[in-house]
């Protein structure tokens, strides 16, 4: 039998007839994932369990009785259809009813509760993010937009930084283990801060960041860790454990570059201005201190003090002079008196009054000697000497 060759369209048409005809309307339970409410108003999502998944669409005309979101466990009532342009099959939903929270969400909540009780989320144990980190570790996918966002932001704001980039598996098998390794490796490099992150995705895509081993690695790291996982609305366990949660990779880059290059220039200029202002002020201070010195009263009175002393000294001198001349005069008078006294006592002095001196061969005969001892004596008067012979000597009778 000859094998028939189909065109793609022909085969797809057969599949469509087969599937839509033999399956048609279905009632399916599963977990909602990748829910997207498109701008057009139509809603797309994946329904899955642990082994398989199937695409679903819910047109905008179909009313939705509750807020559909990822992780929700639902029962879908719809019709299985084939969409030839993409070659896939999907369920067009007419009705969705909620079955309760999905498994992943239950796991998430359980782990969150457990870690919270262990104190992993306590603010008191969170390390502060340095305001001026220059060595920044980054763990993310090299091909994702997140990495480019981080590089561009840091380059623009603070190109002074060095980025230590550790390319990391961020989803799929082994990704949780690789994230743990990346955190450990970066933590050993003595960096200022570590950013772990990835772009947005479904709860499955982000799941590695909801694992306990990643939470442990973040908790044990000595370096401050910033998580930047997914979009603003995505919360992961990593966000709760990390020292700071940035809404997006770009936000994390902004967070670590709060002091930008412009701000640094500004800081340096400010420091320069204070330096100049301070030194000028301090010099001026000393100048005016010296100027003021003259105005200070004790300094000002100093010349007065000196002239007072000069006067005092003058006084002393005057008094001294007076005393000395008084003394001198007294001494002079005394001396003169003594001189006159002396003069009057001179042995020849009486000659002036007509008395005579008796001598014998240059020996002056004193009052106690008797003239009887001499034969010949000289009588000395003021203007003449008489050589005489003594004829007789007799004592003088005293008159009463």
């Amino acid at each position, binding site marked *: 039998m000859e094998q028939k060759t189909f065109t793609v369209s022909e085969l797809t048409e057969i599949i469509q007839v087969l599937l839509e005809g033999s399956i048609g309307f279905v009632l399916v339970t599963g977990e909602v994932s990748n829910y997207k409410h498109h701008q057009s108003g139509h809603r797309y999502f994946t329904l899955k369990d642990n082994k398989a998944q199937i695409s679903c669409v819910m047109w905008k005309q179909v009313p939705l009785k509750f807020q559909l979101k990822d992780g929700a466990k639902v029962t879908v009532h719809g019709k299985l259809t084939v969409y030839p342009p993409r070659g896939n099959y999907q369920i067009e939903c007419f009705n969705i009813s909620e079955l309760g929270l999905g498994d992943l969400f239950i796991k998430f909540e359980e782990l969150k509760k457990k870690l919270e009780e262990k104190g992993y989320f306590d603010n008191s144990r969170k390390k502060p993010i340095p305001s001026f980190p220059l060595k920044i570790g980054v763990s993310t996918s090299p091909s994702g937009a997140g990495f480019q966002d981080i590089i561009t932001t840091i380059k623009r704001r603070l190109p*002074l930084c060095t980025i230590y*980039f550790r390319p*990391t*598996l961020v989803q799929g098998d082994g990704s949780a283990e*690789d994230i743990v390794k990346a955190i450990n490796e970066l933590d050993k490099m003595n960096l200022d801060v570590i950013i772990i992150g990835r772009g947005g995705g479904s709860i499955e895509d982000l799941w590695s960041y909801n694992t306990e081993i990643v939470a442990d690695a973040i908790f044990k790291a000595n370096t401050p860790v910033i998580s930047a996982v997914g979009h603003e609305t995505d919360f992961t366990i990593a966000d709760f454990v990390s020292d700071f949660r940035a809404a997006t990779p770009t936000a994390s880059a902004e967070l670590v570059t709060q002091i930008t*290059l412009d701000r640094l220039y500004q*800081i340096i200029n400010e420091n320069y201005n204070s330096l100049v202002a*301070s030194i000028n002020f301090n010099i001026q201070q000393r100048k005016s201190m010296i100027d003021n010195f003259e105005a200070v009263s004790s300094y000002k009175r100093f010349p007065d003090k000196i002239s007072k002393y000069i006067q005092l000294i003058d006084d002393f001198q005057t008094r001294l002079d007076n005393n000395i001349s008084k003394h001198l005069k007294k001494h002079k008078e005394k001396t003169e008196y003594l001189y006159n006294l002396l003069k009057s006592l001179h042995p020849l002095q009486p000659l002036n009054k007509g008395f005579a001196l008796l001598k014998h061969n240059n020996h002056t005969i004193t009052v106690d000697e008797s003239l009887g001892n001499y034969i010949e004596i000289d009588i000395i008067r003021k203007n003449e000497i008489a050589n005489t012979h003594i004829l007789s000597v007799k004592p003088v009778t005293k008159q009463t």
Partner: protein
Amino acid sequence: MAKKDNKTFEEKVTRLEEIVKILDEDSEPLETQLLLFEEGTKLIHELRQILNNAELKIINISSSTNENPNFS
């Protein structure tokens, strides 16, 4: 005071702020202050130089699991 050193940017900024503080407090003799002022202006020159030449460095740390690069 002037010497070739390997101080990091942060260390230089810290030193500069220290000098500014000393001059602000006016606690040192003027001679010391003038030396510090000189050191400060030198630091400012160096810091500006660093900023003018700043260029983002990216150091790649190769990951140890590369068999299945399912990066996304």
